[in-house]
């Protein structure tokens, strides 16, 4: 059975051209890039070439790019590194309620270490309010970290405007751009950000390699101490093959950004229209316009997300409910709760994220089948419009918040 993969926000297949770039670095150019000898020196050059490719993709200086082992590590480093280094100035951090767990749980951990964190709310489309941000800034605020684009509902935050507000106050600004790269333009100069996290496996590169942009001069502690790699900022023998792969993937993503985005947007709109026109009692989550080109996120009333996923999987379609790294968890998505959905509704979410190889045929197949799946599951459900059971229960989501 042909499979239709619609979970590109979770991860993407590595592009064959990227695999090819990477391969020689396992067996032939395997030398330690920190070494004096020939094997090491050549590899060092390849790493620097990749650094340049990444830098170009986000309009940074290559000396501002530091490779990490994942997007999560980049987020952890940015937040903990800034917090630890600048705590003498203050211990207050501002973030939002819809951040990725790599940001949220890091902030929660810092709260345990005596930092104070303000979690800005979002509106029903998932946007933070600039006024809320202005009001939240205090004398002891040392860091603002707001994601560029949300991984679940696809909403794109006003990073440039946030950057302007924050810069004026002299506060350090980090953005998690893991979902933005390859989907919308990312330009650190234009955006006024001081730190920016990215990850290769979201842009047809391998898993296990990310990067943190650190603007020159921003004072930050290391997260991983040890050897002198990454200009003494991130220890560990360089993951050469994956670094080179990330460079190639970033280059390809930048080169084809407009074309890929247009393609995804067309199919996303086809998908949204197909679902909204043909399935009753459905809600599109996330901002209608300010959203990632490949993201569609729905809530279907009266049914639960995993049963939709399983039903799709059986007929060859891969989608997701909530974020990939929390599936297996029983809590409904913190993002859907943050945009104001009752927990009961949040449980019925389906995220379909389109990639560069998705076709209109795929989308039509998905829509046709989704109509039937939703109908079948709703027939099985004890709740419906006439019998919403206990609205009180429906709203009793309080104990799921945190």
């Amino acid at each position, binding site marked *: 059975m042909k499979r239709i993969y619609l979970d590109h926000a979770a991860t993407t297949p590595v592009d064959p051209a990227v695999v090819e770039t990477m391969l020689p670095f396992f067996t032939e150019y395997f030398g330690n890039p920190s070494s004096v000898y020939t094997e090491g020196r050549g590899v060092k050059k390849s790493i620097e070439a990749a650094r340049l490719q990444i830098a170009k993709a986000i309009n940074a200086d290559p000396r501002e790019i530091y490779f990490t082992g994942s997007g999560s590590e980049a987020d952890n480093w940015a937040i903990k590194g800034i917090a630890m280094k600048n705590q003498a100035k203050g211990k207050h951090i501002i973030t939002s309620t819809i951040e990725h767990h790599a940001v949220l749980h890091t902030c929660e951990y810092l709260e345990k270490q005596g930092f104070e964190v303000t979690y800005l709310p979002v509106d029903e489309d998932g946007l933070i309010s600039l006024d809320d941000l202005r009001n939240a800034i205090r004398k002891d605020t040392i860091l603002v970290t707001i994601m560029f684009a949300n991984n679940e509902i696809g909403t794109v935050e006003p990073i440039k405007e946030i950057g302007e507000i924050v810069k004026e106050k002299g506060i350090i600004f980090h953005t998690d751009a893991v979902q933005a790269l390859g989907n919308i333009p990312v330009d650190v100069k234009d955006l006024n950000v001081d730190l920016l996290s990215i990850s290769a496996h979201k842009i047809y590169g391998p898993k296990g390699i990310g990067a943190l942009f650190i603007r020159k001069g921003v004072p930050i502690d290391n997260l991983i101490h040890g050897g002198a790699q990454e200009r003494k900022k991130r220890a560990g023998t360089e993951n050469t093959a994956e670094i080179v792969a990330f460079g190639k993937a970033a280059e390809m993503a930048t080169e084809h950004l407009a074309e890929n985005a247009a393609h995804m947007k067309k199919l996303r709109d086809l998908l949204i229209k197909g679902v909204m026109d043909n399935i009753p009692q459905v809600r599109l989550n996330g901002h209608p316009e300010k959203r990632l080109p490949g993201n569609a996120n729905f809530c279907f009333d009266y049914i639960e997300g995993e*049963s939709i996923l399983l039903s799709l999987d059986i007929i060859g379609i891969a989608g997701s409910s909530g974020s990939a790294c929390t599936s297996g968890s029983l809590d409904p998505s913190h993002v859907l709760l943050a945009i104001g959905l009752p*927990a009961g509704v949040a449980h019925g979410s389906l995220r379909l994220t389109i990639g560069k190889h998705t076709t209109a045929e795929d989308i039509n197949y998905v829509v046709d089948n989704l109509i039937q799946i939703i109908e079948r599951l709703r027939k099985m*459900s004890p709740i419906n419009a006439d019998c919403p059971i206990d609205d009180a229960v429906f709203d009793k989501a309080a104990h799921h918040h945190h």
Partner: protein
Amino acid sequence: MEYTDVVMENFTCPKHVGEIEDANGVGQVGSPACGDIMKIFLKINGDGVIEDASFKTFGCGAAVASSSMATDMIIGKTIEEAGKFKNSDVVDALGGLPAEKIHCSVLAAEAIQAAIEDYHKNKA
């Protein structure tokens, strides 16, 4: 998360879905906020034997499969026998459930007890 073939079968082709018009015992447990609601319908005859059972479930694959398996298992049992029905019976019959899904089998067992209670209440 990994479901057994039996779970998948019971999810894709669940037995006893729907309402029993003339059910004389109906039990419902769970809440949408927690991601599962199970409603069990029993038709119990004069001899206290469960002649028919059905379910409607809002929930994950394991919830649907547990409902399907549980209803199937209690049909033909006396309410006394069904009263001893435990969640582990469902888990065993399904060939196991992922740890984080065990609570679905608990819900199924609870829904059956609730339906039997409802039957007793109706009779009283």
